């Protein structure tokens, strides 16, 4: 194994100062991503998934600021890069595709123009070579009649086609990491499956790492080997896909999984997570999920849970796990 991970996020914090106060969107998260791996980030709206992604590319919109932490790409802290160095970094080393392909392409430029723009920016290809490359890319992402599509405007394409074009733009310079920010949320189900399949295929072909951001556990299960569960800008649980799905150790993850429909039992009722997402303006002192957690204890409200290992492939930040260990020890003493 390689010693330095491809991407290493350390204690990243991002906040948005507003008139009402500071919105703490991301609060000290850390994770690694290795070459060729797929990392899934799950969480509900406002949990800080997308802000994490935008922070990595430093494309936060005003007034968003990275307030702490480090982001190492191949051992270099990109937070120390100048804006000019970032121009060279974005789209070349790390690319991103967005949630809504209907609005993510510029309506007044042709598809060809928007793909070749990235190629011309990051490579030495001339216009003609860039056009050829764009044509190949459209073929690669499975767009039919690519020659014609190059000259078309986004409004002339369907949603699925546009997302394929977005992927083509993202892959234009063969990035090491592709961040997919809810890439299938705005698409209908059959197209969703096609896009996910395409991404997996491309990953095999090009060997890039993928960060898959979604609130759809189905997508995560299909795509990722490692999963991070986020809540209120913090990581509450992380581990391999199997561990998270079959051995959830954080009340929030358990709730998420309970709210998924299963096809094994008939007429089983879905259990929603009660309450509303936390107000990021007034973060509680303890665990952010405690106000909605039915197992919350005194300590959950007053102290932030530490991330503790469940096993070699699994970490969770929940006081319940500490209690469990404590109870086991006590039980053991009694018996022994």
């Amino acid at each position, binding site marked *: 194994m390689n010693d330095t991970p491809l991407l290493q996020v350390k204690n990243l914090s991002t906040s948005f100062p507003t008139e009402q106060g500071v919105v703490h969107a991301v609060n000290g998260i850390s994770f690694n991503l290795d070459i060729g791996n797929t990392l899934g980030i799950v969480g509900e709206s406002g949990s800080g998934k997308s802000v994490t992604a935008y922070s990595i590319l430093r494309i936060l*919109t005003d007034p968003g600021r990275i307030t702490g932490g480090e982001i190492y790409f191949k051992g270099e802290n990109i937070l120390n890069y100048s804006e000019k160095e970032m121009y060279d970094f974005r*789209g070349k080393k790390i690319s991103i595709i967005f949630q*809504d392909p209907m*609005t*993510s*392409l510029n309506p007044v430029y042709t598809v060809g123009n928007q793909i070749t723009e990235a190629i011309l*920016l990051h490579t030495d290809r001339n216009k003609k070579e860039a056009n050829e490359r764009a044509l190949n890319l459209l073929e690669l992402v499975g767009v039919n009649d690519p020659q014609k599509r190059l000259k078309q405007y986004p409004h002339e394409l369907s949603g699925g086609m546009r997302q394929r074009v977005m992927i083509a733009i993202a892959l234009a310079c063969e990035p090491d990491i592709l961040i997919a920010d809810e890439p299938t949320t705005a698409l209908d189900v059959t197209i969703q499956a096609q896009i996910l399949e395409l991404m997996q295929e491309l990953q095999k072909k090009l060997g890039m790492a993928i960060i898959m951001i979604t609130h759809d556990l189905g997508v995560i299960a299909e795509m990722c080997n490692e999963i991070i569960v986020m809540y209120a800008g913090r990581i509450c649980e992380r581990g391999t896909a199997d561990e998270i799905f079959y051995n959830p150790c954080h009340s929030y993850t358990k709730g998420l999984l309970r709210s998924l429909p299963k096809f094994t039992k008939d007429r089983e009722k879905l259990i929603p997570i009660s309450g509303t997402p936390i107000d990021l303006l007034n973060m509680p002192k303890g665990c952010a999920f405690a106000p909605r957690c039915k197992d919350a204890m005194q300590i959950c409200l007053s102290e932030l849970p530490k991330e503790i290992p469940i096993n070699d492939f699994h970490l969770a930040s929940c006081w319940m796990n500490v209690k469990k260990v404590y109870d086991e020890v006590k039980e053991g003493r009694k018996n022994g």
Partner: protein
Amino acid sequence: MLKYALKRILLAMVSVFVIMAIAFFSMNAIPGGPFAKEKAPEPAVQAVLEKRFNLDKPVMEQFFLYISNIFQGDFGISLKTGREISTTIFESFSISAKLGGYSILIALIMGLILGSTAALTRNKWPDQLIVFFTTLSVGMPSFVLGTLLLLVFSLILKVVPAWSIENQNYVLPIIALSLYPTAHITRLTKSSLLDVFGQDYIRTARAKGVPRIKVIVKHALRNALIPVITYIGPLTAYSLTGSMVIETIFTIGGLGTKFVTGITNQDYPMIMGTTIFLAILMVIMTLISDLLYRAVDPRISFD
């Protein structure tokens, strides 16, 4: 494209005809006439004059006579000065075109620059300064501004001479005429740029590694221009009507003045000639702005 332009031109001809009819009949509905003044000529002379200019015939007949004359390229002569209407229009238009053309050009250039500056420095001092300026300019009628400019710069400070035939200084009239549209375009550009900055495709462009300047100029500005271009039509209408007021204040003998004095004198051929001319001009500018609109926004189709 060509088919669309032809269709629009045909429609434009219909509009011009309707405007012509409305102007002709309402003009004739106003009591009095070109020769019914305080110093009215002898009844016999008046009868001869009216016969000479077909004014003794029924209005409907006059209308058709007038139209058939127009199709022969004859716009008649001024009942006041006796000069050819077409010559008068072209002479005075060369003055008005300078005034209106420069004003539109300045309004567009300044509006785009100020609007972009305000959007880029949002809530900082340049933006606040620009907001102050636009609020002031939108709130002040051009005749008040024109008079103030004349008073301050020509009479008190004597830095810019007032307009005269020998000394055609267009600075003050252009400022007076262009201030309102400049402010309007500034606000339009600012709000539309801010709207565009929040769009997903701007984020896409940034994520691609497009430098900031290029994001603004290539990706944002072209989209933000769309509402500004649709304003070119109304802008033309504004500077046409606005120049009537401004020309009167600065005593510039342009088309606007001819139009206004034509009406007060009830100089029928003059009223008709200027109306038709302005209507055609307006229609052409609207057509141009629609074609430009299409050139900038591919989502607009002509079919």
